């Protein structure tokens, strides 16, 4: 919690202002304003279709938006500039629900690929870094394994190591435990929690309410394309103000 308190005085690492996004006639984000401080851990909750994943995907340019502004590290997101997008994406890592490891590469080379191509890291440097990161997610011995030899939880931990290899300033987590068997959720969440403890800026869309409550500094409740309610986890979960959030939280206990 202290991290967030300090953080509010520093310039935001992600700043979203008046962001609107439509798929055809369907407006899914109806003016989002959000500032994320460095080191802050933010959980985004809400019903499916509330726009939370879309918002996350706007931050690293996987989705384009029609109006509004988005800056990461003070630099504006410019969809039309390949160089600007490449620079931005080096600052923003993303982890997906379906892991999306590269199935034709070993675990080690999955982690090494982006640093060697994008950051022009030498093979030795990249390999040492990959081994260090795999060790950190508890998979040091899997360096030469192929992704399909791993369990879902292990694959997702490799995906985390792969994202960390680019040394991002912000990590986006898009429902990263939703595709996992229940017994594998814990191992992934423990890795995410350790990242939070180390001061990584995390923005996560999640259905794991207990986890959101425990780890996050701030919870954002999205409803029908808007930030409907926002605040510290104990306030949001303990004393929800709006009927929509109350209904959403009670629906989880059914």
């Amino acid at each position, binding site marked *: 919690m202290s991290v967030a308190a300090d953080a509010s005085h520093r310039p935001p690492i992600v700043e979203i202002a008046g962001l609107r996004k439509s798929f055809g006639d369907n407006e899914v984000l109806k003016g989002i304003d959000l500032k994320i401080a460095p080191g802050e851990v933010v959980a985004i909750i809400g019903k499916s279709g509330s726009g939370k994943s879309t918002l996350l995907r706007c931050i690293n340019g*996987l989705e384009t938006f029609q109006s509004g502004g988005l800056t990461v590290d003070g630099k504006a997101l410019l969809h039309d500039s390949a160089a600007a997008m490449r620079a931005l994406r*080096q600052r923003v890592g993303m982890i*997906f629900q379906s892991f999306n490891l590269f199935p034709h590469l070993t675990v080690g080379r999955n982690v090494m*690929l982006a640093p060697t191509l*994008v950051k022009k890291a030498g093979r030795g440097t990249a390999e040492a870094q990959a081994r260090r990161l795999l060790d950190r997610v508890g998979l040091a011995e899997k360096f030469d394994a192929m992704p399909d030899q791993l369990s879902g939880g292990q694959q997702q931990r490799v995906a985390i190591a792969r994202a960390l290899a680019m040394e991002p300033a912000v990590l986006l987590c898009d429902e990263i435990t939703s595709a996992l068997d229940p017994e594998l959720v814990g191992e992934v969440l423990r890795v995410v929690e350790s990242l939070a403890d180390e001061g990584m800026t995390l923005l996560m869309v999640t259905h794991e309410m207990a986890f959101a409550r425990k780890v996050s500094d701030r919870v954002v409740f999205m409803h029908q394309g808007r930030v409907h309610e926002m605040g510290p986890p104990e306030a949001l979960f303990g004393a929800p103000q709006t009927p929509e959030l109350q209904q959403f939280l009670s629906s989880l206990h059914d």
Partner: protein
Amino acid sequence: MVDFSLWDILRNLILSARWTLVLSLIAFVGGGVVGAAFLVLRIWRPAVFDRPVGAYVQLFQGTPLLMQIFLSYFGLRLFGVQVSVWVSVSLALTLYTSAFLTEIWRGCVAAIPKGQWEASTSLALSFGEQLRHVILPQALRIAIPPTVGFVVQVIKGTALASVVGFVELTRAGNMIANVTYAPFTVFACVALTYFIMCYPISLYARHLERKLHVRGG
């Protein structure tokens, strides 16, 4: 009248089969290069290139190869371009092959899950790096069986080059039949020669397909 032994017939057919193989090779290499270029354009800027390339594919898939060879042979002459039969036949076969290959390969690229693009995009890889290191290595694996299978179509397709006077296997068979008065024997030998060239390739394609399914399944 001279007597032709079966060996005479076969020997001459086998010699002319060289040109069938050369034509097939030209068609495959030329068509592969053009088809790959179209493929890359199509996935690089779908909004711009998808329709024109799609129309190109439809045009060459929707007209007989025979007409394409005629048009390439007589059409170029009509515009005052004097080219050898080699050039016009190679051109027609290259365009025909490229249309099929680009479509086959597009299907293979489309079969790669969207998440592979998204993951490599979010790791800041450029379009070229994504293709080279993530998408194409995976697409290539599934592309090999249908591509090898299509080679058989190309080899058989080269027979149509005979209509504009290109002496390959079929044309040679025709000429030999005219002097030996033994068309059945000769064309049976021609068919057998095509079969000997195509069957191993078909077998290989099937073998590759099985291997892929075993690994993929």
